[in-house]
């Protein structure tokens, strides 16, 4: 059961921001995470539903590369603009939860909730996502990497909303998203890798890799990216670069029981993705 609470449905950003600046509130969009979180709680703050704000609603082709926080996962997964220009993100969104969750859950909510297993976050990171935050008194833009502080913790202040998320297309890059789950459907990612790779037959030109579900915060594997970009393709070099990332993960979170299976799989997944075919 949900506790009793009030929920307001403002029609403009100005109205939302003034509500947030004056009250203890929680922003709700799809509600697929928030309403689960509120179950069996004694009380809830005032909810501010942002889904009726016309300034936050646009078509993807009107503002290419600018994501509305209200775009649902289902919408992004099916949208020709995202499928063509940001395929890693479209694939990741098609894997979220179930069709019902995808029809309600939003990109803004996925970022704001900041789950280590959020499917949309690694692909947003490879497209160098920048998040525009608005409050009654201020406007600022943070990279998604800056915004995410810890598991379920972000830099978003209580008086701020996500107004938009800008991403950069990676033209000429091989792009995708792979994840490991315990079962096929309705499952959380146990390990996820978003990638965009620019390459020639014999050489990696530019490599972008983001990894989710193995650390409290999804991250760009910058050490691996630096080690491989502009390098002749070589199996030993690739394994060395992967080892850098794996030792970074170990350094960050220490020994974890699940890493006994996750890290060897991550190594194989990265080999497959970066070698661009079968490793064996």
């Amino acid at each position, binding site marked *: 059961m*949900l*506790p*009793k*609470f*009030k*929920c307001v*449905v403002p029609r403009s950003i100005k109205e939302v921001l003034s509500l947030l600046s004056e009250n203890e509130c929680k922003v*709700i969009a799809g*509600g*697929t995470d928030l*309403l*689960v979180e509120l*179950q069996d709680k004694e009380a*809830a703050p005032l*909810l501010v*539903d942002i*889904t009726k704000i016309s300034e936050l609603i646009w078509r993807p082709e009107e503002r290419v590369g600018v994501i509305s926080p209200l775009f649902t996962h*289902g919408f992004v997964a099916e949208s020709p603009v995202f499928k063509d220009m940001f395929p890693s993100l479209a694939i990741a969104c098609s894997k979220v*939860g*179930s*069709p*019902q*969750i995808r*029809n*309600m859950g939003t990109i803004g909510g996925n970022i704001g909730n900041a789950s280590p297993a959020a499917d949309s976050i690694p692909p947003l990171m490879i497209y160098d996502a920048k998040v525009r935050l608005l409050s009654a008194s201020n406007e600022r833009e943070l990279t998604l990497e800056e915004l995410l502080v810890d598991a379920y913790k972000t830099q978003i202040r209580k008086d701020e909303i996500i107004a938009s998320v800008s991403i950069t297309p990676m033209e000429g890059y091989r792009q995708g998203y792979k994840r490991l789950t315990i079962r*096929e*459907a*309705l499952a959380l990612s146990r390990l996820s890798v978003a990638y965009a790779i620019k390459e020639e037959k014999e050489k990696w030109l530019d490599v972008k890799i983001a990894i989710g579900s193995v650390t409290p915060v999804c991250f760009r594997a910058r050490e691996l990216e630096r080690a491989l970009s502009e390098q002749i393709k070589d199996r030993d070099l690739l394994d060395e670069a992967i080892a850098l990332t794996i030792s970074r993960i170990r350094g960050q979170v220490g020994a974890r029981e699940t890493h006994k299976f996750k890290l060897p799989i991550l190594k194989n997944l990265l080999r497959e993705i970066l070698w661009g075919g079968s490793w064996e």
Partner: protein
Amino acid sequence: MELDVEDHITLLELLRDKLNITSVKEGCGIGECGACTVLLDDKPIYSCLTLALKVDGRDIKTVEYLSKDGSLSKIQEAFVKNGAVQCGYCTPGMLLCAYALINSKKEISEDVIKEAISGNLCRCTGYIQIIEAIKDVAQI
């Protein structure tokens, strides 16, 4: 239809407790089982995770819509013919997901059907009959 609802009431509670539409079931209450599925503007959603006030001015379909003319729709007939109804608890949600899929522009295959009902659990585990019933209607 116009109704006054309290802010914290879910669409599931509105449908069952205020409107007596008990075909919409509560299973898990946290968006995992699909028994509470309804169509919001023809797309499946979990009514247990949707505040009633969010559907103001929008179209909600429950399984009653499928037999609104007093006879079973094609998809319901196919469920009966294929033995796709066992205890019946998941059936309204399964039918609505099947209906939404059949009416979408998607090219339907067995994998697409499985994906479309992946948010609905059948604890009698009668999935094969359900998939066969949807295949019948999709003519594949």
